[in-house]
């Protein structure tokens, strides 16, 4: 019950807060994008390798580029008011539909990478805290630091060479094995097999972040008095580490977890390019190249929603973890 009332309240509060942020994002990016040289018509002509004056004019009219900027902004905002993300002339389909085709893949990749980084990160953090100041801690800290320092896509590339080419365990890219019309479970297995490398490549930076965070949080908690009380009860160290120390250390970790979602989505762009993963990140990149601003704004909006919504979830997790919050 406590959680339910809390959900309603925090959802409402975040949504109210979210509206100005979203409007801000739209306007800021719309103006920013006007400064980008070249427009969608140039792109199509560039790709086609030929054009005539008439075909360029026709394209510009079709893209609505011949109207003044303000009119374009207002038409976009009124589209938004009707909950439609506008129409993408380049892909010749509504932006909403285009993004919805890519959104599940990005959500899958993000969810997988986020859980992987949290679970593995916290496990490593706990292990490092358990062995504090001895060789396992030093060794793992170094490994974690290397993960933290190496460029994500470089790790991805190296993993492709190792796991896909030499060992052949995992597919080198793409989202599913097409045309293999596998049974349901095989399809799920196949999807997971494709998901392993990209999500680890995206997650490796964040595993390091959460591991270091958990380690310092746990070392902090270990100095508290109630840990001594627990020891005085003769509990096994494993129970103490998990039930008492980790349980309290998770609170500072979850507060920070939400902050990294923004740049995890950014990192997804490069990972999606390396693994040919049909996510929103690459769509956004292509949209910038293709100067298809309605698609780019659509992606920016949806990714902001994903980040805001995820923060609401994290806020709930935080409240569940820390009963003191409810007393506010």
């Amino acid at each position, binding site marked *: 019950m406590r959680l339910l009332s809390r959900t309603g309240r925090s959802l409402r509060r975040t949504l109210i*807060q979210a509206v*100005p*942020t979203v409007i*801000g*994002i739209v306007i*800021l*990016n719309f103006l*920013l*994008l006007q*400064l*980008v*040289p070249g427009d969608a018509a140039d792109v199509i002509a560039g790709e086609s390798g030929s054009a005539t004056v008439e075909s360029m004019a026709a394209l510009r009219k079709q893209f609505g580029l011949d109207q003044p900027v303000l009119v374009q902004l207002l038409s976009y905002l009124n589209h938004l008011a009707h909950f439609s993300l506008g129409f993408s002339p380049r892909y010749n389909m509504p932006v909403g539909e285009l993004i919805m085709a890519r959104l599940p893949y990005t959500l899958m990749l993000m969810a997988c990478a986020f859980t992987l980084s949290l679970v593995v990160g916290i496990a490593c953090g706990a292990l490092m805290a358990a062995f*504090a*100041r001895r060789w396992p801690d030093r060794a793992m*800290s170094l490994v974690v*630091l*290397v993960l*933290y*320092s*190496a*460029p*994500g*896509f*470089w790790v991805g*590339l*190296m993993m*492709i*060479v190792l796991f896909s*080419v030499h060992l052949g365990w995992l597919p080198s890219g793409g989202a599913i094995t097409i045309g293999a019309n596998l049974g349901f479970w095989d399809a799920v297995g196949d999807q997971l097999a494709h998901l392993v490398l990209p999500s680890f490549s995206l997650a490796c930076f964040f595993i390091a972040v959460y591991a270091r965070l958990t380690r310092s949080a746990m*070392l902090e908690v270990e100095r508290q008095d109630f840990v001594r009380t627990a020891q005085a009860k003769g509990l096994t160290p494993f129970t103490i580490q998990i039930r008492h120390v980790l349980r309290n250390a998770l609170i500072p970790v979850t507060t920070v977890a939400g*902050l990294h979602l*923004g*740049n995890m*989505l*950014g*990192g*997804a*762009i*490069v990972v999606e*390019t390396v693994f040919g993963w049909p996510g929103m*990140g690459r769509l*956004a*990149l292509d949209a*910038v190249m293709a100067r298809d601003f309605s698609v*780019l704004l659509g*992606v*920016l909006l949806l*990714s*902001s929603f994903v*980040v*805001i919504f995820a923060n609401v979830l994290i806020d709930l997790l935080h409240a569940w973890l820390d009963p003191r919050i409810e007393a506010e």
Partner: protein
Amino acid sequence: MSGETSSSLASPAAVAVPFKPPVVRRGLSAIVINHPTFVVGLAILTVVFVLALTADILYPGDPMDMVGPPLLWPFQDMEYPLGTDSLGRDVAAGLVYGARVSLIIGFSAASIGLLIGTLVGAIGGFFGGLIDNALARLTELFQTVPTFLLVIVIVAIGEPSLPVMALAIGIASWPTIARLVRAQFRSLRQQDFVMAARSLGYSNTRIIFMEILPNALPPVVVTASVMVAGAILTETGLSFLNMGDPNLVSWGSMIGGGREMLRTAWYLTALPGIATALTVLALNLIGDGLNEIFNPRMRQR
């Protein structure tokens, strides 16, 4: 109870303490011994700095010049110890000049980010009220937009060159600092020394920069090293997507250039990757070390 047996009034020493209590070291030797990681980080960074500074002396020619046969493996031809890339350019020269580019971008982007972030955080944190709310919304806005995408758009606006990239990464990375400084200012604002400064009639700006900022600096300094590391990683990402500055050899452009030959000449991707990882590792180690030095409580462990 080791030592003598009990005897007359002279009485034995109550008990000779059987071990020497561990000694706590002070001063410079303390830093070296208590924080090996910090020293290692500093050492690596100095090596990279020296390489970057002496690039002209080590490799006087233009690193992008096609000097040798293409695709030489490292140590295959001692004239090019680390081999050559697909266009016959010396990889070693590329790494050395790349160090210069990466450091320049790293530090300039971080300083832009620091500048904006500190200003926004300080003003927001200090004045509070409407300004703080607006600035907080702005920070949040920049935080929700995927940072990398913002960098790409800014680089697409300006032409992909060193200054534009540094500006783009700086603009995309200031929110982290803003949040940190704002939190610091909000807590430091209520401290007594601020009341005292106010009572002496100091102006707000003087209080912000001369009184509160020095106290808010330690965590900022620690995050600064992490920001430099982040900037270098973002630059490699940009160059990897062929958005880097074509007139400069950077580690990112070398990784990007070597990407196609991943199957055959994987050293073209591996070497700059390791160089990047090492430099970023050094910066992170320094960040950790600074954190421990500034944070005495940690030292007693």
